[in-house]
């Protein structure tokens, strides 16, 4: 788990188009190992889109995103964990089976990470052999977040990770992000819940104020 990560993430002049409209453009930032970025902004300003762009799931309308310091030739997407609004949890598989699959799949031929240790992070170990379909929304959310621990990757992309989590689990998540940073990892998180002083950078994706527009 304590692999020291040495990856830096850099975005240069990134623009994002959604549904024929440009959400944002000319976005640049660089995150060194151990730095974390908080993404803020009202709905529809491109928080999710930015995450998906970094994860390689959405094309860039302009600019580029690159990660340096990893093994040459590794695509940025393979350095990232993305936990979005959907959990990627199969209801008919048990908690352990879900996690084991993602660990095996995401690791590929590499080694590292530990499913059993990961199960302990949010206290899901006692229900490890229960079908995930029986879990509450919060527990499914925790299961999705456990991917972060079962397969170590330097960059965490967390889109509203605190949704349906209780206060104690949010605190646990905050600790996890801090621990990830101490190991040299990068975290990019969008959230409405204050996660304390876990972040070194802030990105405000404010919409242009609607009222400023001249009325027709």
């Amino acid at each position, binding site marked *: 788990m304590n692999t020291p990560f040495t990856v830096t993430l850099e975005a240069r002049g990134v623009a994002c188009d959604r549904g024929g409209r440009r959400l944002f453009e000319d*976005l640049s930032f660089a995150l060194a190992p151990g730095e974390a970025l908080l993404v803020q902004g009202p709905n529809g300003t491109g928080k999710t889109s930015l995450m998906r762009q970094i994860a390689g799931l959405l094309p860039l309308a302009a600019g580029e995103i690159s990660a340096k310091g990893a093994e040459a030739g590794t695509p940025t997407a393979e350095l990232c964990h993305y936990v979005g609004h959907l959990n990627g949890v199969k209801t008919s598989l048990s908690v352990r089976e879900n996690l084991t699959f993602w660990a095996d799949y995401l690791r590929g031929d590499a080694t590292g990470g530990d499913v059993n240790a990961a199960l302990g992070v949010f206290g899901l170990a006692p229900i490890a052999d229960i079908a995930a379909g029986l879990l509450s929304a919060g527990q499914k959310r925790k299961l999705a977040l456990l991917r972060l621990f079962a397969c170590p990757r330097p960059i965490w992309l967390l889109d509203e990770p605190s949704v349906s989590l209780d206060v104690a689990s949010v605190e646990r998540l905050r600790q996890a992000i801090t621990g990830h940073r101490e190991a040299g990892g990068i975290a990019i998180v969008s959230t409405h819940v204050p996660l304390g002083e876990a972040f*070194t950078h802030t*990105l405000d994706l404010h919409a242009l104020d609607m009222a400023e527009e001249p009325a027709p």
Partner: protein
Amino acid sequence: MLGLGPHASFIIAAYAVAFVALGALTVATVADDRKQRRLLADLERRGITRRSAKPRPAATPTVTRTAP
């Protein structure tokens, strides 16, 4: 009329089908074109032009350092 021989009905039917099918295609295409032009002219008359359609300038967000 024309002496089309014993199979006149097939020849006439073939020409008729081609005429009807391609005619219908032409009418539908032209009608669609007209309709779109009318819609566009209508919108522009109400002052919604491509100029006003120009998207609001996109946000150019910046990242600020908030903690050491």
